[in-house]
């Protein structure tokens, strides 16, 4: 049994920021991750991070944009924290070495992003995530945080409503071990890979969310799934919103700049949910190109600007679509991008389970509500990562290390769980996974309605049944990827079920959740968060109020 005061599960931006803060506050802290931290999905973030550091900007203007963008589902007290703490967190990252793009006089440069009333997005070319992640990892090395690379946490251990640690699989030799801790911080990212088309890394299966859910913690607002308007046709690699921020135009096959029909004021810089639906409508109504895409054109921006600020995008287009955006438009289509929902947690990342925190994309602190604005997710990771690390470091000072009993029990349960999966015959994880991803894409996507959601739910339930019969055929001990995949597919099924049921019950259209059979937002009945608890036979849904402070819900127009 290994032990640390605090263990962070996940080595992306939020996890590293939490671990770093806890260490700075003097705690014995470790980070455990199934990939080395610099391989985390945070590295793929392109466009930027919001902070109201401009002279004419203010935190409450940032908060207003965020709340309006969220279609009024965000909790306004946590949004206030996000926006107030943004400048300090960004300056801190800058001071630690992040290579932000600069204005002519050497200050951090900012670019416009969708749904924002000010060019508020700080950026490092189109490699903002890469720069932030490497910077934070460097500082984690400097601080001497212990990092366990290539371990997959498979089960949280609990004792009398307290998280006592977890069981983890060492991918190197497939041995299970227990980790005991006074506090555990989940920072495992999103679940993009339950959708067929996703900008997410292949590793984003949402397993951390299912860990919390299985430990009895509610998961919140899971029906709100963000589809990014512009993913590269074919591979669905992200084409940053920064491309539109720099002045890119969207065209349909008749060379119409169609956004003037949908968001005449904001055009291409309307929030993501609106642009994604607009593109999807163009495609669905026959004005897309053959194969289902529209064009994102930056040829008018010129070679110099493209190379300077969008060099990574240019390379992606060349490598993955054979298109050079200096001379040709980029083929794009909407794809899954971000999970607004996640493990229900508060302003310091605390979940209802004592000793368990959740931050970053795996969490729902509810700063993004029904639709996240671009540039706010990177901000979310470092603001709430820092807060969770600090809170946990203070909390563990007065707590004794939990007893070993619950951990030993969990270890025995997990051993028997894995033993029962090994064997020939049965279902293959790949078939179940592929069918799940197709189901979610087809029936629980950009546009939803009762009939589709009911079909989707029936499919997910059928896949859950098949999921019980998946076997791991490979007996190798070293890096048994099949075993890891089988464990993850089971978690993917849990999450898909909750998303689909939540979406079926919510009879309104709000932010990214758009029902063609309930076109309007319904504040009277649905200005509330969904909470899903894991029960035998499926999720139990409950609802709780949205915290509203200074911004009264209004009709959302752009």
């Amino acid at each position, binding site marked *: 049994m290994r032990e640390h005061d605090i263990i962070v599960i996940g080595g992306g931006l939020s996890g590293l920021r939490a671990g770093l803060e806890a260490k700075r506050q003097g705690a014995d802290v470790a980070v455990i991750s199934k*990939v*080395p931290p*610099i*391989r*985390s*999905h945070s*590295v*793929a973030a392109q466009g930027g991070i919001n902070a109201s*550091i401009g002279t004419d900007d203010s935190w409450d203007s940032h908060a207003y944009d965020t709340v309006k963008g969220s279609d009024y589902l965000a909790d306004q007290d946590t949004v206030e924290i996000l926006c107030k703490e943004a400048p300090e967190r*960004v*300056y*801190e990252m*800058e*001071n*630690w*070495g992040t*290579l932000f*793009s*600069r204005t*002519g*006089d*050497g*200050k*951090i440069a900012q670019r416009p992003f969708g749904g924002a009333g000010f060019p508020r997005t700080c950026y490092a*070319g189109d*490699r903002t995530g*890469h*720069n932030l992640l*490497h*910077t934070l990892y*460097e*500082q984690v*090395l*400097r601080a001497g945080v212990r990092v366990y*690379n290539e371990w997959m946490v498979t089960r949280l251990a609990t004792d009398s409503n307290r998280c006592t640690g977890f069981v983890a699989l060492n991918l*190197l030799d497939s041995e299970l071990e227990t980790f005991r801790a006074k506090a555990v911080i989940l920072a495992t990212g999103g679940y993009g890979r339950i959708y067929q088309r996703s900008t997410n*890394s*292949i*590793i984003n299966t949402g397993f951390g969310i299912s860990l919390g859910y299985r430990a009895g913690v509610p998961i919140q607002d899971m029906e709100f799934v963000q589809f990014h308007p512009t993913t590269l046709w*074919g*591979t669905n*690699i*992200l084409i940053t919103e920064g491309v539109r921020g720099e002045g890119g135009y969207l065209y349909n096959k008749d060379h119409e700049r169609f956004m003037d029909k949908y968001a005449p004021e904001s055009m291409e810089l309307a929030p993501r949910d609106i642009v994604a639906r607009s593109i999807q409508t163009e495609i669905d109504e026959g004005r897309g190109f053959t194969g289902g895409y529209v064009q994102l054109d930056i040829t008018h921006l010129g070679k110099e600007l493209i190379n300077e600020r969008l060099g*990574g995008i240019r*390379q*992606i287009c060349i*490598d*993955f679509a054979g298109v050079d955006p200096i001379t040709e438009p980029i083929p794009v289509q909407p794809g899954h991008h971000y999970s607004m929902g996640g493990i229900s947690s508060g302003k310091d990342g605390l979940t209802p389970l004592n000793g368990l925190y959740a931050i970053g994309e795996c969490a729902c602190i509810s700063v993004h509500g029904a639709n996240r604005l671009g540039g706010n997710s990177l901000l979310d990771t470092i603001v709430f990562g820092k807060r969770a690390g600090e809170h946990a470091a203070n909390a563990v000072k007065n707590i004794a290390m939990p007893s070993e009993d619950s951990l030993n029990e969990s270890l025995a349960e997990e051993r028997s769980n894995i033993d029962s999966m090994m064997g020939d015959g049965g279902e*293959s*994880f*790949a078939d179940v996974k592929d069918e799940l991803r197709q189901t979610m894409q087809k029936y629980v996507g950009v546009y939803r309605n009762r009939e589709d959601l009911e079909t989707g739910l029936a499919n997910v339930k059928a896949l859950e049944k098949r999921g019980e019969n998946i076997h*791991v055929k*490979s*007996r*190798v001990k*070293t*890096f*048994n*990827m*099949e075993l890891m995949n089988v464990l993850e597919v089971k978690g993917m099924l849990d999450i898909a079920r909750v998303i689909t049921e939540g979406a079926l019950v919510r009879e309104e259209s709000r932010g990214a959740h758009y029902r063609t059979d309930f076109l309007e937002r319904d504040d009277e009945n649905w200005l509330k968060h969904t909470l899903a608890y894991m029960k035998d036979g499926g999720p139990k849904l409950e609802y709780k109020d949205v915290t509203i402070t200074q911004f009264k819900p209004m009709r959302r127009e752009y």
Partner: protein
Amino acid sequence: MVYLKIKRQDESREWYDTFETKETPGMTVLEALFYVQEHMDGSLCFRYACRGAVCGSCGMLINRVPRLACRTQVGIAKKENTREGSGDIFVAGQKSEEENEVILIEPLANLDVIRDLIVDMDSFYNLVDSIKPWISSPEEHPEGGNLMDPDLREQIEKYTNCILCACCHGACPVAARDDTYLSPATLAKAWRMHLDPREDNASRQERLNFVDSESGVWGCDLVYKCVAVCPKKVPPTLGIKALREEIEKNKEN
């Protein structure tokens, strides 16, 4: 059709397996490996994460050239000469005209193999970490953040783009003969930290002293293989030469 000839290795033996896969339009080597892993042999292992050439997990030898599997198209790789049996890693411009349909896939060179295509990256990371690759800025930042000249930023950026995939290490003839050699990626990072105006002078000097050795900047053969294979266009050799000049300039003063 395309044939993947994959080098396999476990605790006790090394061998090659050839898998026949159907080629789909735009298919990458990483996708082909997933196909094999999911449908033909679940025991095959390799690293991956982003599939978009930003995370650096899937560096491997493809036709004896170190590169990222996620951005190498099967259709292109199968037309190349596999250079099977060649002792040399990466020979520039050696492509055959006719389709041979076989792609040779092996683990990155100059690192110990753990199993199949998975190499011991810890030894590589340890080399990188040995130069204390972080900015040792003071706790407090200036009001409104540090300022940085945009031109200087541009110089630093070339090196910041490194994703630590170790393709350069796998191509480096010095790393092949000397496992204490710090590696092109490490030295590129040293130059990146050296250039940064936020770095404090003592740490900058300490790092410069550290790389002033045969395992450091003086070990480099200056053959530019690292520059040629870098998937992010980082030029380690230029950084190494700049560090050498900086060290010599220091000694003259």
